């Protein structure tokens, strides 16, 4: 019973988001982004509901979802840390930040903490190259990092 109402809720939420965009095919990316934000990832059920609303093949939605690195088809932590791995940040010492984050969170890049609070990922250049090393946590940008500073920032998201 509980499970059923949960799926109904999701179906309603998906419909609301799709309606917001008049269920237009070309708005798929925006729709997926909103749902990704809402649930942290695009579950099988969510993708199927989107397909229904937009009258599309669910495989196509999956194809789109897997193309973009900011859309997830697997569950992720509540907060996603994306450390820039591109050249200017590399020159500025990204590796030390990477080590500090791994040590502090007890996970490797590509993993999620057991409490589901953090996922640690690399990303490519985020346009902060003059102030590297830089990272994004969710939508917030942090730069001029040093290991201690990075760890303190992460702490704030606990």
């Amino acid at each position: 019973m509980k499970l059923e109402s949960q799926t109904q809720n999701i179906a309603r939420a998906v419909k609301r988001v799709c309606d917001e965009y008049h269920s237009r095919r070309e708005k798929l990316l925006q729709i997926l982004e909103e749902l990704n934000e809402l649930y942290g990832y695009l579950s099988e059920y969510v993708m199927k509901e989107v397909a229904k609303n937009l009258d599309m093949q669910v495989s196509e939605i999956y194809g789109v979802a897997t193309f973009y690195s900011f859309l997830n088809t697997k569950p992720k932590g509540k907060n996603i840390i994306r450390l820039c791995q591109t050249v200017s940040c590399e020159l500025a010492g990204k590796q030390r930040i990477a080590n500090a984050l791994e040590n502090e969170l007890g996970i490797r890049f590509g993993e999620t903490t057991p409490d589901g609070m953090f996922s640690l990922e690399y990303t490519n250049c985020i346009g902060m190259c003059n102030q590297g090393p830089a990272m994004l946590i969710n939508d917030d940008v942090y730069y001029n990092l040093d290991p201690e500073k990075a760890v303190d920032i992460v702490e704030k998201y606990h």
Partner: protein
Amino acid sequence: MAGKRKQILFSALEPGLGLKKALEHTQTEIIDIIKLSRLRGRGGAGFPTGLKWDLAYSAKAPKKFIVCNADEGEPGTFKDRILLNEHAKKIFEGMAIAGYAVGSQEGIIYLRAEYRYLRPVLVQAIDELRKAHLLGKKILGSDFQFDIDIHLGAGAYVCGEETALIESLEGKRGEARNKPPYPTESGYMGYPTVVNNVETFCYVPYILIEGAAWFQKFGTFESTGSKLFSISGDVKKPGVYELEMGTTVRQVLNLVEASDTKAVQVGGASGICVAEKDFDKPLAFESLPPGGSIIVFNRSRDMLNVLKNFMEFFVEESCGQCTPCREGTFRLLEGVKLMEQGQCSIHYLRVLRELAETMKISSKCGLGQMAPNPFLSIIDNFKGEILARDRVTDSIPL
């Protein structure tokens, strides 16, 4: 000598003045002014902006679109971020003028997901412009209407390529289209579409106010105007600089107080790596295509490491549809790893060079065509350093 710092974009601009001037002209007059200014696109390829608008203007269609490419993903580039954050109204004014010139009422700005935090800034700018009748219906009391939608990307560098961007705008995988047809003929939803870089749009109101002749006075004959450079790496004063086109690499290095410089990557990962012998070359489309980024490496840097970083970038960011790019970037990276272990034979290095040349002429879009640039330029400029590596005999972790 400090570089020539004549400023256009970073000088004050009265909001709406450019648009007001534009509305005093006919559509073709504006296109002629832009053509005369010889403004070339600042997104990388340097395509003449006036010609692009003319193509879109001449295309017959019930609807046309103006798209601002704010997908700035080229490693080492952040000039568009500054413009978006601090000069958004200039961008939108440029888009509105483009809209008026080609006969479009709808603008879209494609903002990369990594810049999502800038969205509120853009929303506010658009709101204010609407209130000031510089966007929306009856712009400045005329019959011209134009409005702008913000569209977020979702994390894919290739979506900066204009046809991939359009695919992405249509909610699809960001895979480049076959060209022709070009976007000016058939772009977003099949309608003629002008795609221009953020920076390109920003020059437009200035040109309308000050005139094409004024703009031409900046820069070189083939590359008029100024250019924003995002400068990072081993320099004392990194940041965004507005410099005249034609400024040399050495001038830039002096300006940002770089010392002990070994190499400069011009144009980001898809640009080329310049060694000291070429530091006196000018940054202009006819010489060193400027792109938006300059990354400086000092003598302590291992250039093979730099190359590996670039190749990793392309392997991750290739859309994967065409063979030379999907498989080729992977093989080049594999080769770099071999070199890192000191295990790449001269023979195989030549094979990889030939592969890189093939990728340049056979890939479907600019990404695959330019991905070999750092490979070729770094290998060629620093062959000695690269081949001098000790051989690591352990098995290679590819």
